């Protein structure tokens, strides 16, 4: 077991070895003279890049470096850099050169040119890292320079499998400070003053929650980290757990100290095997060092953390359903007669917070509540991590101060819409959220503003939709999800969502009826007000928001039997344009012989026979077959 003094020593000793990594926090490109002899190759090991065998890439780098006889080069894998779109990503320090889409075969060139001759391989530079011939430091790349990192502060810098690197960057200092210098009340007050709100979606003030559990007398209390990140299109928590697992462990221990709990659980979904592995390693290291377990840092405070795996039930992201699941039952929500801060897991006071919330706690304790409140807006302090996905150029992970507008996130950081198509909407908050149209793009992103325009902040998934996405189909997609994931306990959710889905399926199949829109609206009201838990209460949001902002699309489906976005297969017609060269390929590939035409003449599709399989479109060599 280590003492506070030893912790400080580890910090200082490791920091010395990390001098190159700290260049990541700098903003200037060093000139050749200023550059050190030592170099660091940092490889992104985030969820996206990891799939490209980063371990093999590291080995290849090391092999070539050895062949070239270079001695002062270190190769290291770190957590997610954020810009998944251009992965696999690699950075070279101290210069801060940002290479993207690096393939196995490019590695030798980077070593030979960059490391041996000090010549940047421009061909591999990230598109954003070069502007009118000038090479930019990675932190000056547009994708990064508007971001502010608190929850992701160590992601992409430290080696996630090395507790010492976490300690070097102030890790476990907040815990040491809290348990040796602060009372439980002081910790709670600091979190309360910081105005930190739950990052899982609902935005409940974290400090107030902790206080409730602290004041409730019980022989045993629990801390749960909700890592059941189920919203489709969300991978913030995954990236934090994989890139900086100790920040979550430390946050949980701080919560344990504040409320008086000795046992914590991380409930993580089984779809994240890499995160589970890295968490296991992190917990083991923390226990070995005495930063988890009995008498932490020689004090009276003891705290242990256990991992519990989910098994693919979205509803388990709901607090009480999650507790049922940990207790070994079907994950069905409990009626909220009593607060979980009073009666939660095994009937004991329990604090359940999201991954990102816990990751925010250590910096607050170290830098103070005022510092945290100075970032973000009045209503929502600090930053928020978003997973930017869908039809946006720079898909990836971004962390911005609360109050940043949707436009800044999607167009400045995200780089705008893929293939330069037209923006249509952004979907936030997953199945509980809504679609926000163009006219609200200048809305600042915080808890209050998004709910005012019919969506929610949610856990941070942000899916950008373009003109080719049908809003009715998107609503159908989410309802399909909720119907599947509804646990079946309460009637409004179980039956109501099913009826809504049936109506939406009818509309997208071209069989919509005039009364359908009214029915959808009244169903939405009943499901929202009558469901037992958050899943049901928000299940209608995707329908409500698309009905509000894209009613004309619903009407086009119902009255004109037409899908304006050209996405609903049943409402499409395939058509051969004048471009047709009469090669007969389409006619030969049509499974129902619906295409007629002579050689070297324009062919014609018999729309009555056509089954809309799209085979003709696939085989046409000149792109003459279109959907309309």
């Amino acid at each position, binding site marked *: 077991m280590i003492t506070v003094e030893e912790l400080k020593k580890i910090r200082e000793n490791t920091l010395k070895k990390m001098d190159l990594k700290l260049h990541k926090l700098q903003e200037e490109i060093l000139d050749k003279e200023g550059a050190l002899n030592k170099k660091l190759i940092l490889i992104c090991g985030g969820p*996206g890049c990891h*799939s490209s065998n980063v371990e093999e890439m590291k080995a290849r780098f090391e092999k070539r470096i050895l062949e070239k006889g270079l001695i002062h080069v270190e190769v290291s894998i770190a957590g997610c850099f954020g810009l998944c779109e251009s992965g696999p990503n690699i950075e070279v320090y101290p210069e801060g050169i940002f290479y993207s889409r690096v393939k196995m075969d490019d590695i030798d060139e980077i070593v030979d040119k960059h490391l041996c001759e000090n010549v940047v391989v421009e061909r591999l530079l990230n598109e954003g890292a070069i502007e009118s011939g000038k090479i930019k430091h990675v932190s000056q790349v547009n994708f990064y320079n508007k971001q502010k990192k608190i929850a992701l502060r160590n992601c992409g810098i430290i080696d996630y499998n090395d507790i010492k690197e976490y300690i070097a960057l102030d890790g476990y200092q907040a815990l040491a400070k809290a348990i040796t210098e602060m009372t439980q009340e002081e910790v709670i007050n600091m979190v309360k003053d910081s105005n930190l709100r739950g990052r899982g979606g609902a935005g409940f003030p974290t400090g107030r929650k902790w206080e409730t559990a602290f004041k409730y007398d019980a022989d045993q209390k629990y801390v749960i980290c909700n890592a059941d990140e189920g919203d*489709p299109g969300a991978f913030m928590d995954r990236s934090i757990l994989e890139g900086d697992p100790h920040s979550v462990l430390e946050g949980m221990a701080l919560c344990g100290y504040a409320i008086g709990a000795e046992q914590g659980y991380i409930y993580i979904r089984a779809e994240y095997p890499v995160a589970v592995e890295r968490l296991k390693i992190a917990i083991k290291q923390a226990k070995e060092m005495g930063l988890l377990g009995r008498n932490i840092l020689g004090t009276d405070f003891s705290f242990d953390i256990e991992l519990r795996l989910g098994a693919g039930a*979205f509803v388990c992201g709901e607090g009480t359903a999650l507790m049922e699941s*940990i207790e070994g039952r079907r994950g069905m929500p409990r009626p909220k007669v009593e607060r979980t801060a009073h009666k939660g897991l095994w009937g004991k006071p329990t604090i359940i917070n999201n991954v990102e919330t816990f990751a925010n706690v250590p910096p607050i304790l170290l830098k103070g509540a005022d510092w945290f409140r100075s970032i973000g807006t009045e209503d929502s302090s600090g930053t928020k991590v978003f997973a930017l996905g869908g039809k946006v150029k720079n898909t990836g992970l971004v962390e911005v101060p609360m109050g940043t507008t949707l436009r800044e996130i999607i167009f400045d950081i995200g780089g705008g819409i893929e293939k330069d198509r037209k923006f249509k909407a952004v979907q936030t908050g997953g199945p509980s959220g809504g679609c926000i149209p163009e006219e609200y793009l200048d809305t600042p992103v915080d808890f209050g503003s998004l709910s005012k325009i019919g969506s929610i902040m949610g856990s941070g998934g942000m899916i950008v939709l373009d003109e080719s996405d049908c809003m009715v189909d998107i609503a159908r997609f989410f309802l399909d999800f909720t119907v599947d994931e509804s646990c079946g306990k309460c009637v409004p959710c179980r039956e109501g969502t099913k009826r809504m889905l049936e109506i939406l399926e009818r509309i997208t199949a071209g069989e919509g009826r005039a009364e359908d829109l009214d029915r959808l609206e009244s169903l939405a009201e009943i499901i929202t007000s009558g469901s037992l838990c958050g899943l049901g209460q928000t299940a209608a949001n995707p329908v409500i928001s698309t009905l509000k902002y894209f009613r004309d699309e619903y009407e086009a489906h119902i009255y004109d039997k037409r899908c304006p976005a050209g996405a609903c297969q049943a409402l499409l017609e395939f058509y051969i344009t004048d471009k047709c060269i009469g090669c007969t390929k389409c006619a030969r590939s049509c499974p129902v012989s619906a295409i007629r035409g002579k050689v070297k003449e324009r062919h014609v599709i018999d729309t009555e026979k056509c089954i809309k399989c799209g085979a003709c479109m696939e085989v046409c060599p000149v792109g003459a077959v279109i959907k309309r």
Partner: protein
Amino acid sequence: MKFNFNWEGNRNKIQKLMDFMKENRSKKGILMMALHETQDLFGYIPLEIMELISKELKTPLSEIYGVATFYSQFSLVPKGENVIGVCLGTACYVKGGQDILAKLEELLAIKEGQTTPDGKFSIDATRCLGACGLAPVMMINNKIYGKLTLDKVEEIINSYR
């Protein structure tokens, strides 16, 4: 598909599971962990093993069955040697995840949720795999394949044949 549980051939695995339960008996809420362990060991959750767990934990079989069927990751039938999960999260959906699934179903001549007759592949439609930056994606035995195209899918499947 009908199959018989091989008691003799699975003796070692059964012993491992029993050891696991003995070791962790003091932990609360052990049922979920036991089911995960069962699925890891056997590749699915055999009814015969649920009966064993029921005796060991003194929990009614009906309750264990209820839990096992509630969670979509638990399977009561054997999976293929290579488990393919096609992501149908939002990001993948808008980028054509459905087409990827259709292509796989065509290539392997099975439907989602089924296993090929030779036991080599099974296809599942999964929830968001959290690799949205690479959409559309699929996962084969915990390895993620991203930025898929229909041609790529065929290539990848062939590499597993």
